[in-house]
């Protein structure tokens, strides 16, 4: 009897461990074209849903907690930066790109971050009294990839909330063939 109980306990324990492992979210693979796939690690507690509109992908990352800001991931081809990756840009070209990205901002501030694979990220933050949102932008082989986030109410985004948006792009992997 004790033997059977022990076996039952071990089986239950194994089921719990494997069940937990199965709940981990697998990365979402976005096929940009035959030579490029983007692997996105969806943060815990978010649901990913995306569609291509011609040459542009828009994907929503909706949190289970309605008090947590949602995010929008967008991928789009650029003809003026065709084939170019952000790390290829000179300092002047990067500064011009940042200025272009901030063209519709009232009071932008920015920082440069990196993905875990070393691709630069532009973290742009709107600091005006009338609006609040953040965009994390990168450029890979002529494709702009960005995440935008805005608060659920009239408040400012917190550093922790912005960190989630930055992490989404930081964990992103660009797989080329």
């Amino acid at each position, binding site marked *: 009897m004790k033997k059977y109980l022990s076996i039952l306990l071990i089986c239950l324990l194994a089921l719990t461990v494997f069940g937990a492992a199965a709940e981990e979210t697998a990365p979402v693979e976005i096929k940009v074209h035959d030579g490029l796939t983007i692997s996105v690690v969806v943060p815990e507690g978010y649901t990913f849903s995306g569609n291509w*509109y011609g040459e542009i992908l828009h994907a929503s990352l909706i949190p289970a907690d309605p008090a947590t800001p949602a995010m929008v991931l967008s991928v789009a081809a650029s003809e*003026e930066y065709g084939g170019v990756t952000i790390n290829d840009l000179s300092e002047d070209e990067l500064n011009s790109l940042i200025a272009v*990205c901030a063209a519709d901002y009232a009071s932008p*501030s920015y920082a440069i971050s990196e993905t875990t694979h070393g691709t630069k990220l532009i973290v742009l933050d709107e600091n005006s009294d009338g609006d609040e949102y953040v965009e994390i*932008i990168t450029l890979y082989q002529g494709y702009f990839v960005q995440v935008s986030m805005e608060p659920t109410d009239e408040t400012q985004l917190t550093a922790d909330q912005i960190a989630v948006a930055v992490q989404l792009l930081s964990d992103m992997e660009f797989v080329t063939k």
Partner: protein
Amino acid sequence: MNKRILSLFFAVLLLVILALPMSALANTASMYVISSNGKGVHLREKPQANADNVIITVPYGAEVDILSTVQSGQWAHITWTDDPNNKTYEGYMMTRYLTQEIPPAYKAPQPAQAQPEKAEPKMPNFANFKLVTPYNVIVRPSKPSGFVNFRWAPSTDCKVIMRCYANYPLQVIAQDGSWAQLRDPATGYVGFMLRSFLTEVVTENGAPFGSGVLVY
């Protein structure tokens, strides 16, 4: 009498036949190539941003003729004549890189400051706004993956009504040098957007808005 009527009929018919090619030519619209970094834009064999279908790179500021638009206005079927060689190329270009007005000589934008001091809010100014015959536009964000803010008033410090992604259709009802007052046909909202983020829609027969059927 019958002969006179018959002569008049043939004269009118002749005039109509002669006028047809001229009206077809009038339906071809010209636009200019524009880009955020002053570089040229690809002309492609098909309306697809693949690496292997580039015909040629059309320089910044070049004048092109619009034959039609496809894929809900995202691409334009165009011709471009390379003047020095007098060779004409035909293909497809993304409409976000086309503008009705001759673009100014490219000047690199002022670099943004990483952590600037908070600037005084810019107050909206309506003094120079003029009503226009309404014309259709699509939104052209500064980066193709981004959005443009549709605001309550013409100032980047004004609150945002909604954020419009690339190719979102709007209608201009008034404008000044920098800003447009627009109506959103989908929601009925009226707001303001910087004109530099808008591309005028070209209709299916190549003519600018107002003389044909919209491709939507």
